């Protein structure tokens, strides 16, 4: 399973929404697209799922060009883009049935899929009702079922927890976590904590360009330590560190565990009050959006 973008560009009139994107995502796992509103996240996903056509460049899904052979390319893809609406005169069951027919599922495959997805996305209570009467959350759950129907290799999700209540958010995130174990999930979100919780790889887009890709510059393993005193740290277990009064941001040497680092720091005379994992992604995001150099984050 693979998504490949080569020089992908999209213009809306004079506005360049996406600018020469080169990206390759391979294998299972969740890749998160982060960025502010209008950054180009949804445009990228729409191009990936043939909702819009590229002005230049191409998207390939499992080596098949989406714009040229959409029917073939989208066979192995399930998508939830923006907040989809369904034909209001059809029930959720009929929507799944129609989708199954397009995806080429036979009757018995469809029956087992409805059972599986009904339990997974908890749509059983309202699946026989017309979608015109669905709430936002119900539609979102049905859309996720549609995306997962037929167990496609690649799942493209555009802000899947948008508009959901807290329980709905947790449910959907759990589904995405389990999907990422054996699917390629491309997830767009503007929630940093969501990306941190779900994604193995994070890409930050701003002004139509990829500004950061954790695959190219992996997040550093950082600890935030609040101490009672100040000491100069000299240790091969610590790659780098910064200090603001009694708060230390420690970049660990990855060969050592947190316990070993803390033990070492205490040996060096540091009186530690509190240790937490430092939220690196949030800083990276803010720096990228503000146009700062990412490498300066912890220095």
């Amino acid at each position, binding site marked *: 399973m693979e998504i490949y973008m080569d020089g992908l560009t999209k213009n809306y009139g004079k506005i360049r929404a996406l600018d020469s994107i080169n990206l390759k995502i391979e294998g299972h796992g969740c890749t998160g697209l982060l960025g502010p509103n209008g950054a180009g996240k949804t445009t990228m996903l729409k191009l990936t799922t043939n909702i819009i056509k590229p002005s230049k460049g191409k998207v390939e899904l499992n080596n098949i060009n989406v714009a040229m052979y959409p029917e073939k390319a989208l066979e192995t893809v399930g998508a939830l883009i923006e907040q*989809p609406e369904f034909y209001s005169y059809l029930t959720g069951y009929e929507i799944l049935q129609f989708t199954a027919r397009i995806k080429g599922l036979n009757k018995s495959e469809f029956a087992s899929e409805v059972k599986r997805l009904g339990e997974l996305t908890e749509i059983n209570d309202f699946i026989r009702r017309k979608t015109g009467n669905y709430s936002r959350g119900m539609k979102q759950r049905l859309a996720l079922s549609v995306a997962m129907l037929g167990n496609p290799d690649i799942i493209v999700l555009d802000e899947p927890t948008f508009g959901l209540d807290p329980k709905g958010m947790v449910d959907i995130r759990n589904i995405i976590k389990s999907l990422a174990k054996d699917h390629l999930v491309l997830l767009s979100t503007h929630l940093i904590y969501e990306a941190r919780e779900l994604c193995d790889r994070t890409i930050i887009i701003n002004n139509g360009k990829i500004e950061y890709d954790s695959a190219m510059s992996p997040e550093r393993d950082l600890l935030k330590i609040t101490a009672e005193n100040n000491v100069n740290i000299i240790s091969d277990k610590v790659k780098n560190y910064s200090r603001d009064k009694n708060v230390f941001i420690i970049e660990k040497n990855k060969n050592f565990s947190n316990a070993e680092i803390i033990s070492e720091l205490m040996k060096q005379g540091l009186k530690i009050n509190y240790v937490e994992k430092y939220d690196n992604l949030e800083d990276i995001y803010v720096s990228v959006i503000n146009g700062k150099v990412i490498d300066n984050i912890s220095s």
Partner: protein
Amino acid sequence: MLFLIVIVGAMMSYFSFKYINDLPTFLGGKVFSSSIKVEVFYYLWTLVLLYIPVFASVFFGSPAISSEIENKTAYYIFPLPINRYKLFFGKYFAAFTVTLFIIGIYLVFELITLTYLLGTIPVTYFLRSFAMLILFILSIMAVTFLISAIFNKNTYAYITVFVIYYIVFEAGSFIVELLYKYTPVYFLNEAGSIIERVYINVNVENPFISHLDINPAPFSAIVIAAMVMVIYTVISLAIALLLFEKKEVS
């Protein structure tokens, strides 16, 4: 729409029963042969029938493409592994079939009523009229789909279809006929009038008509009208398909 057609069919039946013997009075007391009477009654039924494809195409065809964008169902349907050509023709033939079904109800009313009252069906003329009717539905639906593919809002599509049919076509043929004493057979409404003119070659919708003939339309007129409708169908579908293929939800 179904309800409306049943009402219209029932009304036509009622008026046919009521005025079956009054035709000579309406036409200045002139006595017609029984075959002319049959053709006049089928002509009158078909005159009303001609409006149904137009209304049906507005009802079923106008929102066919534009609603996918306006109602955001495109976000559901476009990422599915289905060729847009298939999607387009699926919608087109669904709209055609449902229109034909509705018209079928009207035709059942017509055949039962007129067979009961007149005791005969002018089979050849009826089949010619029906064949032209199918072409007319295909062509008016194709034009409507083209308009629907241009717009992203249903209202614009509804209004434009009405404007094109009742102002551009109807008024256009009026004006051409008035100014140039010439029937613009290339207008879809004029071509569509062949459905009634296979019985009697008069287009009563156009008072400036240059051809007034109690006889059925000649075969050449049927061929020309059929060709016009086929051309409208092919060109409209080709452009609509191109537009739909490139349709984006942005």
